[in-house]
């Protein structure tokens, strides 16, 4: 479990290096770039803000798309709440650690029991927090000299990490079809909505599928009756 947290942390550190470099390249100073990794601490939103600002977008539209993208953490938090059962100061601190990687590890570990799930969340959240911030600082400092982080293939490391987290969750037909549908919906949405929003659109896929399944089950019961 701790090894898993560490490898997730190292993988996100590679991503953090590229965030630091991209932040400086987008015109933020080193302090602003590092402040984002400490205070925002959700990679997608950080890249969204830096991307919009770097592309000449306004501060307002940058912050709006970043916060919108960060709204998925509310769904993660709601999913984690019954596992973590945190209150008071623990909840205030734990909330900052709610993001893609800590949620994914906690939910996979949860299958080995609630203790493993909680350990997965805190270990991954804290490991990623430390490594993400160190990597951001290094990336920001190196930003001006490294040039393009894409030369190191860092932009392929991020989707590969998501793929690695996704694959173990594909255990039945429903999860496979939801993954394929979500990927297609998000890709189709890319040219149509602001950057960051396609992932939120894809979040509707499981809602639609589950509601439709329930409708079909209801019909079947209604037509066939109960043989027993």
């Amino acid at each position, binding site marked *: 479990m701790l090894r898993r947290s560490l*490898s997730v942390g190292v*993988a996100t550190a*590679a991503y953090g290096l590229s965030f630091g470099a991209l932040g400086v390249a987008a015109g*933020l100073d080193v302090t602003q770039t590092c*402040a*984002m990794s400490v*205070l*925002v*601490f*959700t990679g997608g*939103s950080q890249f969204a803000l830096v991307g919009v*600002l770097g592309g000449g977008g306004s501060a*307002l539209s940058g*912050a709006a798309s*970043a*916060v919108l993208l960060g709204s998925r*953490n*509310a*769904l*993660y*938090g*709601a*999913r*984690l*709440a019954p596992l*973590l059962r945190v209150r008071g100061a623990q909840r*205030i601190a734990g*909330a*900052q650690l*709610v*993001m*893609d990687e800590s*949620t994914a590890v906690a939910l996979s570990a949860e299958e080995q029991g609630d203790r493993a799930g909680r350990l997965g969340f805190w270990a991954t959240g804290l490991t990623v927090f430390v490594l993400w911030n160190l990597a951001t600082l290094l990336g920001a400092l190196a930003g001006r000299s490294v040039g393009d982080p894409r030369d190191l*293939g860092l932009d*392929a*490391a*991020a*989707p*590969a*990490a*998501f*793929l*690695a987290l*996704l694959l173990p969750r594909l255990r039945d037909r429903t*999860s496979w079809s*939801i*993954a*394929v549908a*979500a*990927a297609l*919906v*998000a*890709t189709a949405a*890319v040219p149509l909505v602001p*950057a960051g929003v396609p*992932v939120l659109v894809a*979040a509707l896929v499981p*809602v639609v599928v*589950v*509601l439709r399944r329930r409708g079909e089950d209801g019909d079947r019961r209604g037509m066939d009756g109960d043989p027993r």
Partner: protein
Amino acid sequence: MSATWAAVLVTAIGCYLFKLAGLSAPLKLLEHPLVARVSDLLPVALLAALAAVQTLAVGTTLVLDARLAGVAAALVALLLRAPFIVVILVAALTAALVRLAV
């Protein structure tokens, strides 16, 4: 305060409030079978969408570039049951080499 600092702080506060709101959601709501089923499948949808978008999108444009080769190589590594960190390195290395070659 500069506009950039304002954007950074607004983003930080907004993102934190979403995280906190999620953790503070009433547990009863999640015990409803429909909500439980949706929230169980939600990570699958989000991870698939994030993987697809980060492989194919640059801003609001779809682009086929070295990232696709990197992610394809990562998929092969995953199917060969390579450890997580190896998968990541394979992806980055493949994308970097493809960029060098093209």
